[in-house]
């Protein structure tokens, strides 16, 4: 059904500070270990934030209390530095346990731009956007094990994206949800028949169709499915970034881009 994905030598993990950064790092390390790839971690800091801190009236409203606090550049830089160091240690911890080679860098750009610029030779790019507010309610049964969602438009990059999505789904023990454009019925049919006819195939693979092909629609559908990972062909993402149509991702969702 899908072509074999060549083993990537380099995986790029681009992320901002998220509340689930530890889990994100662990998953990225696991993928890198399985693929015997180097993991290039890229912490993207928002450059606008540093600019704001230089303004004389800059202040922030604290997330936990709603109180206002003066924001100045030296303090902000120190905070960002401490945060980066903390995340680097988390990565080292996770990587040494799996014997994965890592690199670490920090850039001050917008996430999307920073990621694309830094991707270089990486064949898989993992991205995690910042979370919004957390939901601190007691929810005993919640396991946080949503499916892996992948967009498949029949391109070669999409073939590799599908392969990675299935690999991630198997790794996490979750289902794969394939999103295909409704305008390409042959592709949809091929996917469905391939899933049904494969005797040893993954019975938890589902195929959904999408009327449009905008990245915002794909992200919304993945979010509605409760997906924790969205795998996309790289060209699709690059086009959206170039036109400024990048949607706001789900708080807990990781984006995997396949070149």
């Amino acid at each position: 059904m899908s072509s074999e994905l060549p083993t990537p030598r380099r995986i790029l993990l681009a992320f901002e500070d998220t509340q689930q950064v530890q889990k994100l790092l662990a998953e990225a390390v696991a993928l890198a270990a399985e693929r015997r790839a180097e993991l290039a971690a890229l912490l993207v800091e928002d450059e606008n934030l540093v600019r704001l801190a230089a303004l004389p009236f800059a202040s922030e409203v604290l997330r936990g209390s709603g109180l206002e606090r003066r924001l100045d550049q030296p303090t902000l830089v120190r905070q960002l530095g401490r945060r980066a160091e903390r995340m680097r240690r988390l990565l080292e911890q996770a990587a040494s346990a799996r014997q994965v080679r890592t690199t670490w860098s920090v850039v001050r750009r917008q996430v999307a731009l920073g990621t694309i610029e830094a991707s270089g030779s990486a064949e898989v790019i993992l991205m995690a956007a910042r979370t919004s507010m957390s939901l601190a309610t007691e929810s005993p049964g919640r396991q946080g094990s949503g499916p892996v969602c992948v967009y498949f438009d029949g391109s070669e990059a999409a073939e590799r994206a599908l392969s990675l999505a299935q690999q991630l789904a198997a790794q996490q023990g979750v289902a794969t949800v394939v999103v295909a454009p409704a305008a390409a019925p042959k592709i949809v049919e091929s996917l469905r028949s391939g899933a049904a006819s494969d005797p040893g195939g993954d019975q938890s693979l589902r195929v959904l169709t999408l009327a449009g092909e905008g990245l915002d629609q794909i992200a919304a559908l993945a979010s509605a499915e409760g997906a924790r990972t969205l795998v996309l062909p790289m060209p699709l993402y690059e086009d959206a970034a170039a036109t400024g149509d990048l949607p706001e991702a789900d708080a807990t969702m990781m984006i995997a881009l396949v070149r």
Partner: protein
Amino acid sequence: MPAVNETPEPLEIGQLYSACDPSEFDFETTADLEPIELPVGQERAVGALQFAIRMAGDGYNVFAMGPPGLGKQAAAMELASQEAGRRPVPSDWVYVNDFVRPQRPRALPLPAGQGRALCQSMDQAVDDLQSALKASFESEDYRNRTEELEAELKERQSEALRTLGEEARRHGVALLHTPGGFAFAPLSDGGEVIAPDDFAKLPADERKRIQETIRELQEKLQALIRQFPVWAREARQRIKALNRETATYAVGHLIDALRTEYSELPRVIEYLDQVQADIIDKVALFVGMEEGEGPNFPRGSIEDPLQRYRVNLLVDNGGLEAAPVVYEELPSLANLVGRIEHEARMGALVTDFSHIKAGALHRANGGFLLLDARDLLLQPLAWEGLKRALRAGQIRIEEPERMLGLFSTVSLEPDRIPLDLKVVLLGERLLYYLMQELDPDFDELFKVAADFEESVDRDLSSAHVHARLCAAIVRRNNLRPVSRPAVSRFIEQCARIAEDGAKLTTRLGHLGELLREADHWAGEAGRDTVEPMDGDRAVEQQRYRAGRIHERVLEQIRRGILLIDIDGERVGQVNGLSVVELGHGRFGQPSRITARTRLGEGEVVDIERETELGGSIHSKGVLILSSFLGSHYSPEQPLSVSASLVFEQSYGMVEGDSASVAELCALLSSLSGLAIRQSLAVTGSVNQMGRVQAIGGVNEKIEGFFEVCREIGLTGEQGVVIPASNTKHLMLRQEVLDAVAAGKFRIYAVEHVDQAIALLTGVPAGEPDADGNYPVASVNGRVRARLRAYAEARRDFGARASSSSESVTDEQ
């Protein structure tokens, strides 16, 4: 018996030992006999026990009293077991958690056997509930609904922030995420945050407008953020309600099954209702842990969060077929009323309802509890704890540490359990009388006393019953059968232990020891049955093992260190006899008693009493001697003698009046000037009329003097003078009987001191004539003459002293 004025003849050999004739029995060995379990000759005590055991009503507990070895415990156990068989098996008791007040565990009664069933049911239910609840809470439906609620909240928050962000955008301001929260930043036309230099170049009005806009936006953001916890709380409430709904559905059918099973037991149903409510409330305890990889707490550990739903089986009567009969060997407070154990956790002692342990009162509830009174009184607080439980009719678990104020951490106050049982206390008479005297509650709580006899009359019937007792002991201890002649020998030994040839001891402890040791010696000799020589050896070996001190005493007499004459004659000196008891050893020992007399004012000085080495009974005996001397020899004039009495070479306590005949004889010898035969020893007490009265330990005393004579040399003149009333007590050892039979030793029985003094001096005591005068040469005549002489001398001395005093006055 001869008249008191006649010198008695030695006792016949047949009077010295009451043999048991084996031909009176019709069995060959004890294997042919039907064992008897209840003690013999204890009709009064057994009747009292039966009465108390069957009598309904408060306080009809019983104290079985008597020395050890009478079979009190066996009798009480047998009678209690018989009565228990007629009573129903009492309830099981369990302790369960009180979910509202965990420090007050609740006690639930269940029909016998159902306590364990409830325990197992609840254990199973906890396991099943864990699976059922996990399944419900991991179901697609539940997950969808919770995620919906979470997403709703998230969306509400995100939407609010997005709306605020859009409003800010409209004013040329961006909403940014900072490490600690949010911040508003003015944007340039290019969509980036404006640089400080560029901002400074803006017109003042514009700068002011931007800052005011940001101020307004910040106020809105602050208001929004303050709303977030409220929204989160609302979401939590809705999720909680969902949890309750899900849990109720999952739990309901499992608890319903238990309700059906225990529908006849309303208190269990009430408990199950509380269990269900608590599980729903604390559902996270069940679903918060992964199956097989959850917290690895041992079942029953206080750290096991599901422990709260398990059942502590306190009393399990499921295996009983009758009411319980319990003997508690260590009746401490905790072993009686139960205890609350604690676990050390993080340096603190913690506990819960599952750490409540039953005591003997719990186990015996509905039946009978046997306790040793001495053991009970030796345990601190135990007697008071037992009384409280009996008075209140309920068992309250008390912690001694708390009662003494040594322990002030939070502990438990479990429900009290109703108490309905009979207590049988086993102990010695002294304890019974002391408790009755000193404890005002005792009579109210122990209304019945079962007083066990120490001996029974000896006849053919009782001998046969004792033979069956031997058979019971043999069977119970798996000993070799005892032959008929050996049984006879053991019965004779029972008479010896009873210190009476006409009685048999009921102290079966002694008999049991002899039978077991005889069995041992029979085994050593390679015999299949116990024969008389095995019984004799058992007795001899017991005496030998305990005989070290006795042998040292004999050695000292033989070497002349302890001065005892066994031949010749001495004035004012006589051989008295005493019994020494040390541990297992009991032997007779002769003592030299001497008396000295002179003119005086009628006092007899007991040197033992003056030196505080004489007990009160001994002193009483000596005072009786003064009275006898005065009334018998000097009724019409003052007793003008001063006498002193002493036990020579005695450095310990002298107690008892069994030497008073000997002391009187020494006094009469001193007064009469007639010498006493040292080949005889004397024992017996005397009254004011000179009648000789029975004493204890007559066999040991005779044997004690015999052994001294045997050590130094039997002459055929030696013997012992005993009270005639002690003749029936004689059960002398075979070697003494052999010596008597060979004419080498004699036993004389006397009724009056005149007979004793005649035997000792070889001079008739003398009968008074019509005027009350004794023959001059008789002992009594000599004594009276000496006392008259003393009286006259005293009168003359008094007259001279008076005349001399008057002369001095006249001169003045």
